[in-house]
């Protein structure tokens, strides 16, 4: 009668269920380390140098659900020298990958635009791989006032 164990057990179980569920539901967050891993997966072990690529993201974003992004790469876009891929990565979105574009010599101009989601104030990185295998990157720090992805639907 005075043994509090059953009640405590229930509470403990309930507590564990609730926290367990919360842990499962809580969206994973990318970290600079997981972003580095995603970059390695996309371009291999090539050394990434800054330059040649320009990432345009507004430095102050009001709504993280729709962020206009454009990437351009300095390249003659000929059969011998062209941009093979352009990748965009983020540091703190639930997943580091954002989008990967595959271009070829017929593209004429290495410039792409899209609209992305940002979950937090963070660094956005663009990396391109040239036909000669070299990789170039650019990064922009973006300040965000309303985040995307994680809030509940209306």
């Amino acid at each position: 009668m005075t043994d509090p164990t059953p009640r405590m057990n229930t509470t403990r179980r309930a507590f564990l269920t609730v926290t367990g569920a919360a842990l499962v539901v809580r969206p994973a967050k990318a970290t600079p380390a997981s972003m580095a891993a995603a970059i390695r997966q996309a371009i291999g072990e090539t050394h990434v140098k800054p330059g040649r690529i320009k990432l345009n993201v507004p430095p102050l974003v009001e709504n993280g659900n729709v962020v206009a992004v454009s990437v351009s790469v300095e390249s003659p876009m000929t059969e011998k020298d062209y941009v093979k891929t352009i990748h965009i990565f983020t540091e703190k979105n639930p997943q580091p990958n954002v989008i990967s574009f595959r271009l070829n010599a017929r593209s004429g101009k290495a410039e792409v635009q899209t609209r992305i989601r940002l979950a937090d104030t963070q660094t956005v990185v663009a990396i391109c791989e040239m036909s000669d295998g070299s990789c170039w990157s650019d990064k922009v720090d973006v300040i965000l006032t309303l985040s995307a992805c994680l809030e509940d639907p209306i």
Partner: protein
Amino acid sequence: MAARTLINVPPKAKRGEIIQIKTLISHIMENGFRSDNIGKPIPRDIITAFTCAYNGEKIFEATLYPAISANPFITFHTVATESGMLAFQWTGDNGFSQEATAKITVE
């Protein structure tokens, strides 16, 4: 499950001219990280791939991840080589597939 698409390709171009192609498709792009009002996770439903072929030859591809906004908008460039058809295809989760075409006349 037809999604609305909007393609912007110049109808006429000079041979060798670099043209800009803008594409937009209506799609929810549910990222799979959200839960509904009773805490049940909403399954992911996104477009994962986009391709563009110019007279059958693939000229542009993109792999999309959940961080792309709803109604994916993609702009890219190509060299106008010959008159013909540009074919666009979007594929995604739950067997999603949508195609669209645009005509171009090269002089």
